[in-house]
């Protein structure tokens, strides 16, 4: 503590007001704990300010424009003009509405809000430096601390986000004009979502991916429609290549790519592997967007002063109560490691608050959904068939294609399918994968089915309204039971 400095005390110090941190703070407030929430930048964290919400706002806006322009078969003829600054302004309004809502909710639940950057002084004291010169700092003594500092985009060698043509996802979402051409490095879900946004806005998009396909980590049949649709928008893909540097060229830049390491190239003798051998490949563009993953933000925290350990990647390991190696310090959200999803962080935040309040709460990842807002969307929850079999289940799957769905056809989006993975013996739903229209919404029902221990029959015999996309879930369950009506049973 600084001489003359009087520390304030709090039951729970939450560092970071993203979807993990603010949820932890509000829940702790609801449980009558004295809570102090420190945020150095903006309430709502990456999700509300630079991630989920702004990207989904722009995805929606670009989809409106794109669909209006491509609705001739529905008898709609339009030539929408896109005003990117207007679009970004609308996105900002949405973001502001949500972030101010978070602030109000925190206050309404008795959470003390402090703006500044917190770092640990010792096991029970943190120091908060307020932004700007002369703003000062203060000490806070805490009974429990919750680290929720989130993550930031990984930078790759030779691509500094300080350089104007090089963008991370956050910068890409704040562009004031539509680039004519864009190289997207990384075909994960952030890269693919933004590739779709800009392609629909008329940008000439090229995606460079180190691995052999889009959306690594998702099953091939889920990723395939996304790649196919992106190609229909004009997105060009180069797989098994890494971007190694860029240089200015003419009015724009030239991104230099090289074949990815031999380990990746040698796994497949197919066309993509052959392409990898072609070198060199340089791509001209106006901007380059790097979306190769995210890394935890821990370096400003002085975690070692609190005795909190991190792993070799910088994440803070936690147990199923969100506790770190130090009993009274918790870590939640991206900083606590994969899966780096906002809803995971929120759930961890609730658990951390409840554990601190002495409740028997614990994190359960068995039905953690994931949603990718590409076109078509992807939603997954629980286990894939392979994962279920690795865990010793004998599985049965049921699948329903959207092209057999009346509602899907009436939306003009009939690509993709619903698949349910179940235990062959008792019929318990173990997992589900959806690719297609509103997959991000449809997956919720299947998450509930898993959590409740529902069986295929439970799902199949739950009457679903017609005509809805949700009927596809019921039909997939019926398909698994060999009694689907609107598709052929296998």
């Amino acid at each position, binding site marked *: 503590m600084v001489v003359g400095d009087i520390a304030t005390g709090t039951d729970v110090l939450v560092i970071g007001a993203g979807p993990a941190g603010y949820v932890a703070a509000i829940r702790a407030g609801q449980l009558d704990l004295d809570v102090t929430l420190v945020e150095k930048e903006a309430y709502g964290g990456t999700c509300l300010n630079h991630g989920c919400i702004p990207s989904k706002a722009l995805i929606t806006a670009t989809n409106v424009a794109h669909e209006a322009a491509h609705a001739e078969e529905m008898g709609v003829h339009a030539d929408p003009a896109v005003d990117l600054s207007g679009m970004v302004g609308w996105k900002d309004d949405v973001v502001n509405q949500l972030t101010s809502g978070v602030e109000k909710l925190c206050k309404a639940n008795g959470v003390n809000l402090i703006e500044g950057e917190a770092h640990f002084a010792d096991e029970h004291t943190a120091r908060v430096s307020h932004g700007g010169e002369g703003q000062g700092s203060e000490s806070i003594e805490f009974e429990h601390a919750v680290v929720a500092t989130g993550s930031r985009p990984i930078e790759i060698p030779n691509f500094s986000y300080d350089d104007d043509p090089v963008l991370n996802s956050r910068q890409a979402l704040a562009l004031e004009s539509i680039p004519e051409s864009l190289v997207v490095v990384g075909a994960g879900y952030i890269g693919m979502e933004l590739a779709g946004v800009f392609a629909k806005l008329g940008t000439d998009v090229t995606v460079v991916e180190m691995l052999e396909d889009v959306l690594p980590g998702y099953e091939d049949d889920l990723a395939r429609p996304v790649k196919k649709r992106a190609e229909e928008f004009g997105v060009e893909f180069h797989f098994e290549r890494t971007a190694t540097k860029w240089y200015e060229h003419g009015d724009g830049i030239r991104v230099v790519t090289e074949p990815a390491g031999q380990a990746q190239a040698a796994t497949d003798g197919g066309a993509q592997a052959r392409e990898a051998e072609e070198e060199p490949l340089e791509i001209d563009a106006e901007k380059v967007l790097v979306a190769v993953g995210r890394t935890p933000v821990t370096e400003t925290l002085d975690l070692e002063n609190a005795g909190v350990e991190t792993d070799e990647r910088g994440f803070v390991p936690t147990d199923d109560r969100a506790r770190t190696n130090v009993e009274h310090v918790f870590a939640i959200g991206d900083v606590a490691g994969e899966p780096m999803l906002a809803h995971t962080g929120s759930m961890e935040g609730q658990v951390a608050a409840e554990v601190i309040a002495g409740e*028997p709460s614990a994190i*359960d990842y068995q039905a953690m959904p994931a949603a990718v807002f590409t076109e078509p969307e992807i939603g997954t929850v629980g*286990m894939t068939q392979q994962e279920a079999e690795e*865990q*010793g289940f004998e599985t049965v799957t049921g699948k329903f294609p959207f092209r057999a769905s009346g509602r899907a056809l009436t939306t003009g989006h009939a690509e993709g399918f619903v698949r349910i993975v179940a235990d062959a013996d008792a019929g318990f739903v173990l997992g589900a994968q959806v690719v297609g229209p509103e997959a991000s919404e449809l997956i919720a029902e299947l998450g509930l089915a898993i*959590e409740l221990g529902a069986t295929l029959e439970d799902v199949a015999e739950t009457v679903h309204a017609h005509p809805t996309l949700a009927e596809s879930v019921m039909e997939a369950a019926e398909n698994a039971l060999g009694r689907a009506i609107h598709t052929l049973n296998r």
Partner: protein
Amino acid sequence: MVREFKLPDVGEGVAEGELVSWLVEPGDAVSEDQPVAEVETDKALVEVPSPVDGTVRELRAEAGEMVPVGDVIVTFDVEGEEPAEAEPAESDERAGEPEAEEGGAEAGSEEVATPEGRVFAPPRVRRLAREEGVDLSTVEGSGPGGRITEGDVRAAAEGGASGTAAEADAGAADPASEAGDAGAAQAPASTETTAAPQVESADRDRTLAAPATRRIADEEGVDIDAVPAAEERDGEAFVTPEAVREYAEAQRRAQEADAAALAGREEPAERERREPFTGVRRTIAEAMERSKYTAPHVTHHDEVDVTKLVETRERLKPVAEERGIGLTYMPFIMKAAIAALKEFPQMNAMIDDENEEIVYKNYYNVGVATATDVGLMVPVVEDADRKGLLQLSSEMNELVQKARERSISPNELRGSTFTITNIGGIGGEYATPILNYPEAGILAVGEIKRKPRVVTDEDGNESIEPRSVMTLSLSFDHRLIDGAEGARFTNKVMEYLENPELLLLE
């Protein structure tokens, strides 16, 4: 079958107790109502009886440990029924046993880990399981298709009736059980690794394993190249999730053994010694602290000439002894105090802080502070005003004896309205007794000593004579009683003690 035994409420309103000693060991046969443990609560030492005929399976608490009422302290194998599979003695030998099978022994622990793999139970049931300390992976579901219900968890929590791995295995015909066991059954090779010593590192350069297995290895903090492989695929070592868990568990045990060995080497020589602040000592401390910091204490001192009382007692003592009763001065003091209490009812009252009321008591339960080996106890002679000297003496002697032997019940230590403490046995003249809160008064009496006193005869002549003198120290709650009243009360006590024949009128 395993019966869990929770620490019962051994006295009215007792929340926890110190487990003083075990009277049995694992493996001992016990009969119903046979004492199995001594538990000290709220100043009393009580014996906890076995609820069943059976064999002691596991002691869940150690001597000296504070145990909340309701915590499982011991488990029994009930006679005539099959013992559960996971015997604690065997589990050490079976170093590589899959976690799920050890879960039975862990049911009821304070914090139950979230089960890995699928458990077919809705979130509210999983939460209940955590609340009740039930390991869901050991519970057989009775719901549709074998889903675990709230009732299953409650049953497991209450008696472990459906909470053992053995029963889950026995129910293998049930589809859910089959599903639950499939993870273990699918890798027969892993059973072979169970018997092999698991602590040794395999130290390979390359290991095949599923991503989920690698994740488990990360979570367990083990190097997957070090995990002994039970299988091979394409000529490479293939590691299963079970093998990772077995290896991690073996590592943990080895580390614990090392830690235990190190701890065993510590030298006992020490400059200071620390002991848990528990049991009677802590109870006394809490009571004293509450009393001292709640009621403003005033102590009034005086001394009384009890020469006549000494003579009276000497006369009555042989009579009492003929009836098998040792007559001390305490019954006389009690009688004198009660007579004074009747004149000063506020001294037999208390302040009900919570309701902001003064409670006057028309009954006279006198507490007699008693020094025991473990600390101060206050046995209570109920309705002392309705009892004669000999009955008072007899009851008090019996209670004091029980307190010293620590066989007194918590109920016999409660409900006093005024307390008397004898400080004379060891030495000293005066004291400042702390109120037996929430009582309003406490009287400390000193040793009766022969002292020179100025005596005035009937003609007004003064002389100095050796007399029997006793000191009195009366502490009272100054919120309720003013100083003058305290003095008057003491005067009244003295009047009776100076003239014991007045007690005949009481």
